[in-house]
Structure formats: C-alpha cells, structure tokens
C-alpha cells in the first residue's frame, strides 16, 4: 500500500514509522522547514518538504497512485482541503483526516471527509473506558449507520444471569453479538446461558444504553474495577 501523510507532527511521524515498519510505502509531507530538517535524516526519501495543500506538492509525492491519504496537520482547513482534493481531484478513495478542534467535526462531515478523527474524542472515549458509567463501555459509534457497539460486564444481581439468550427480551434495536468469558470470546447461540462476570458486546441504536444497562448491570457497578 502507498500512503501519503500530510503533516509531520507527532501523529504524522509515528504513523509514518508504523506504516514503514509494516512494509508499506510512505511519503510524509511537512511544510515547516525546521520540522522537515529535523526528521530528514530519519525518514530520508520518505519525507518531502512542501505544503501538502499545493497541488503540485501532492503530485510530486505521487498522489495519483496513492492508496491512502492521511491529513494530520495542525490546521483543520488544511486537513479538509488535502482530503477533498485527494478524493475528488485525484480519486483516491481512502482518506483519513485529523480534526484538531472538535467543533469543526461537522464541517468535515458536511464536506464528506470521513473518517475524521479527533484526538479529543478519542481521549474522551478512553476516559469512558477507564471510568465506565453503569459499567458500560462505548466501543464504537457507527455514526453513518446510526449504530453503536457497547460492552457491559454482567453483574451478579443482573436479571439476565442464568437466562438463555433466546429468553432475554431485549429492547427493539439491540442485539447481543458476542460474549467474553474466561478470556475467550464467542458468538452466542440461542441456548447460550449468560453468567455473572461475562462481558457482553451489544450492537444497538443510539439512545438505548440506559435501557440495556438495566438488563446486565442494574446497579451500575463499574466493569472490572
């Protein structure tokens, strides 16, 4: 795979190293001369000096044959522009953009720049993971599909303990997709019995979290703390 990364800050540099270690071809583009010079020795031909929002700079980096364009500069407008041009002018169908200011997330969405990743959102999600409310962990929000995947640890006093999956009448719009027990995960069948201490993964329509929580962790015990 050939990836072009715009912006050689911490994110861009580390992404580039990871991808290179995984034997992908990478070009990192950095417009700030001192930052470019600082990493030139490490990245050699894999880093280029220039403004990635300039079309000729992208062309010099070979955007026509890029499989993936990642825009992780510190400027949201620049990230939007790089991705928009990559997608619409150079027909690169995989782009990833970094959102610096979470308030700009809507702009990325409006202009079709997806996925747009905001570090603030990721950290918030990590915090949720560390301090789960009702023992519920948001694993993934599929915004476009309007679905969420959550993880819950089944409490000792949960009404579902000892019940077969087929007998648990979950709210419309939710489904158990996996059970983690004793370190291994499996896809439950209708006759799988839920045990206390299981970690269940559910896919659900947004807004059902609290209702679902009542089935597995009624008193809001935090998961595995």
């Amino acid at each position, binding site marked *: 795979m050939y990836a072009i990364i715009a912006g050689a800050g911490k994110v861009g540099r580390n992404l580039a190293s990871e991808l290179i270690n995984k034997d992908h071809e990478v070009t990192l583009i950095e417009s700030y001369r001192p930052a470019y010079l600082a990493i030139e020795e490490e990245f050699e031909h894999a880093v280029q000096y220039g403004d990635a929002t300039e079309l*000729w700079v992208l062309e010099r980096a070979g955007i026509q044959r890029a499989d993936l364009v990642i825009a992780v500069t510190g*400027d949201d407008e620049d990230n939007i522009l790089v991705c928009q041009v990559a997608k619409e002018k150079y027909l690169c169908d995989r782009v990833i953009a970094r959102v610096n200011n979470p308030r700009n997330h809507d*702009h990325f969405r409006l202009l079709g720049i997806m996925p747009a990743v905001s570090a603030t959102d990721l950290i918030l999600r990590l915090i949720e993971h560390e301090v789960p409310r009702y023992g519920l962990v948001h694993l993934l929000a599929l915004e476009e599909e309007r679905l969420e995947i959550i993880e819950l640890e089944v409490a000792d006093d949960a009404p579902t303990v000892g019940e077969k999956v087929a007998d648990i009448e979950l709210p419309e719009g939710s489904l158990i997709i996996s059970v983690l027990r004793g370190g291994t995960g499996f896809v439950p069948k209708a006759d799988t019995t839920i045990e206390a201490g299981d970690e269940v993964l559910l896919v659900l329509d947004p807004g059902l979290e609290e209702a679902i929580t009542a089935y597995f962790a009624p008193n809001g015990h935090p998961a595995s703390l």
Partner: protein
Amino acid sequence: MFVLIVGAGRVGSAVAKSALAAGHEVSVLDEDPLSHERLDAGQTQSWEDSGGQFTVGTALETDALVQAGIERADAFIASTAGDNTNLVIAQLAQKRFGVEKTIVRVMDPARADWYGEQGMQTISPTKHAIEMFERTLAGGGE
C-alpha cells in the same frame, strides 16, 4: 442584497465599503478587532453609522457566521488571508447555509482553477497579477 464578507483585509474592507456605498446591506466578519479600523479609515463617519455591521469572530465558527447573519445572506465573500480557509468557509456557506452567490479569493492559481471547475466562483489575484506582468512585458513596458 445582503452581503457577508469574511476577512476584512485590504481587499475585503475595500469591497465592503463599495458594496455599502452601492446601497447593499453589508456585514463583515473578521477575527481581528483592528480590521474594524480599516473599515473606518478615510470615511467621514464610522462603519456602523454608515449602516455597516461588524462581528469579531473566526470564520470556521458556525456561531460567528450565524451572528454575522449568514442565514439571510444573499452573497458571501471569502477573503481571509488563507486560501484553504476561504475554500472551506465558502463551501459551508453554500452547503450548510444555502447562500446563493459565494465568491472565494484564492491566491494559488492551481487551486483557484480546480475549485472553479467544481463550480465555485473563485478569484485569483495572483493569476491577474501574472497576466498583467506578462502583458506589460510584452507591450515593452507601456
């Protein structure tokens, strides 16, 4: 016509003044309060007294755009110092707020051309300058 101008540098402020003089309703958004002085400069009365509107705010902030009146704008001019900022906010004006006429200043001729092909009304001062230099050079310094 209600005209919203984002970015009141030399170009933005001059266009704002002439649009106001031509009888349009004009609102200016700029992140630098000092830009207001550029609107007052050389005028007999202040920008507001002449009927102009001025909002301090960042172009990418939806709240600032709304405060500056984007929802009822008939025309939107993006003339901040950043090409990419201009291109992004002009698209917001078109796609989010449905502003009928949006005009974008893009210094880089390549980006101006491409976004122009995509249906945006772009103005590239650099392109004009190049053409004028070329013409003057060809005309033997006339």
